[in-house]
């Protein structure tokens, strides 16, 4: 790869890996306190999937000359993270965590399906490897949204409120990279705009079936900035907690 392509691929890998690491960590906060045993195990297991996927992406970055995965994950501060703001918010109540998971993982499945065709073969290979996990994540999100959207008065109200709250944050997933043109031209992937269109097409029928309303388009205001290191105070506090043990002895062998 030439220099420009390498930069473009690294930017892409960083934001994908950081999204997964941060959301994986957030979702793991439900472990042990989930709403019921079966869901506790399922949600925790998906959080572990995300950490595994993040590790594989950090490994690719390492192969491209970046620091090793532990250093990258545990020694950066918030402004060096490229995740979207959606994933860094505290877990809140279960309705919020579920709606975030539904919106994010629908985008993930589509993103990795697109990446299966990537001209950057190591990434295409990973995308094919992740596909089964992501399919289950989408199945989980869709099933829960339909179940609770059509559940009781309270569940419906909660799901709608969380959808309203998450919406502009979720649109922030698709913040364009400075290398968008290169990525598309080089066939590395079709880019954020194309993904957003596919995502809308995928979630709209599910939300309709769940009798939940997507906020009116005139109110859409994507929350951008996360991809270039601008974050809410929620990220640094997460990082402080996540790296607490690592910082006691950064050189420790496990």
């Amino acid at each position: 790869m030439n220099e420009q392509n390498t930069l473009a691929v690294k930017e892409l890998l960083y934001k994908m890996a950081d999204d997964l690491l941060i959301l994986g960590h957030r979702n793991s906060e439900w472990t042990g306190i989930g709403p019921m045993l079966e869901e506790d195990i399922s949600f925790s297991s998906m959080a572990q999937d995300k950490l595994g996927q993040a590790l594989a992406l950090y490994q690719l970055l390492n192969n491209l000359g970046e620091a090793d995965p532990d250093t990258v994950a545990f020694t950066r501060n918030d402004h060096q993270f490229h995740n979207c703001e959606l994933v860094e918010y505290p877990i809140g109540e279960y309705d919020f965590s579920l709606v975030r998971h539904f919106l994010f993982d629908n985008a993930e499945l589509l993103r990795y399906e697109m990446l299966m065709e990537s001209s950057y073969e190591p990434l295409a290979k990973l995308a094919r490897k992740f596909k089964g996990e992501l399919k289950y994540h989408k199945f989980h999100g869709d099933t829960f949204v339909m179940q609770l959207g059509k559940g009781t008065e309270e569940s419906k109200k909660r799901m709608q409120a969380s959808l309203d709250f998450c919406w502009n944050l979720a649109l922030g997933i698709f913040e364009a990279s400075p290398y968008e043109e290169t990525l598309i031209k080089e066939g590395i992937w079709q880019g954020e705009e194309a993904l957003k269109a596919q995502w809308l097409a995928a979630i709209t029928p599910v939300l309709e079936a769940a009798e939940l309303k997507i906020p009116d388009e005139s109110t859409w205001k994507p929350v951008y900035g996360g991809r270039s290191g601008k974050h809410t105070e929620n990220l640094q506090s997460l990082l402080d907690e996540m790296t607490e043990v690592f910082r006691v002895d950064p050189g420790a062998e496990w």
Partner: protein
Amino acid sequence: MIIKSLDPRISRAELDADASMEQELQPLEHFETYEVFHQKKRGTHHTHVGTVHAPNPEMALLFGKEQYGRRGVSVNIWVARTADIFASDYDDSDIFSTTPEKQYREATPYKVMDKINEYKAKQGS
């Protein structure tokens, strides 16, 4: 008093240590159970692996996959409502006992291995 724990998740949940845990269960407060069967390989039979709580078959599949198939040893899962399983009564377990003097219907008394080995040896030579 709010429970303070070394585990930050527990502290965040702000649980009341003095709250009474004694509450009477209401009907439908717990989901019904589903029996989960997984299949290790296409073409082989499904094996019972355990039980999940769920409000409907879709959710039972969703949970069954993650409880019993997350180590990646399944290719397929069945779920069935526990209430739909038609079972014998433990009071009737004596139906399985049988008088032992019926060797003619057990396979063990038939000594065929000698013949099989003889045949194999012939094929091999």
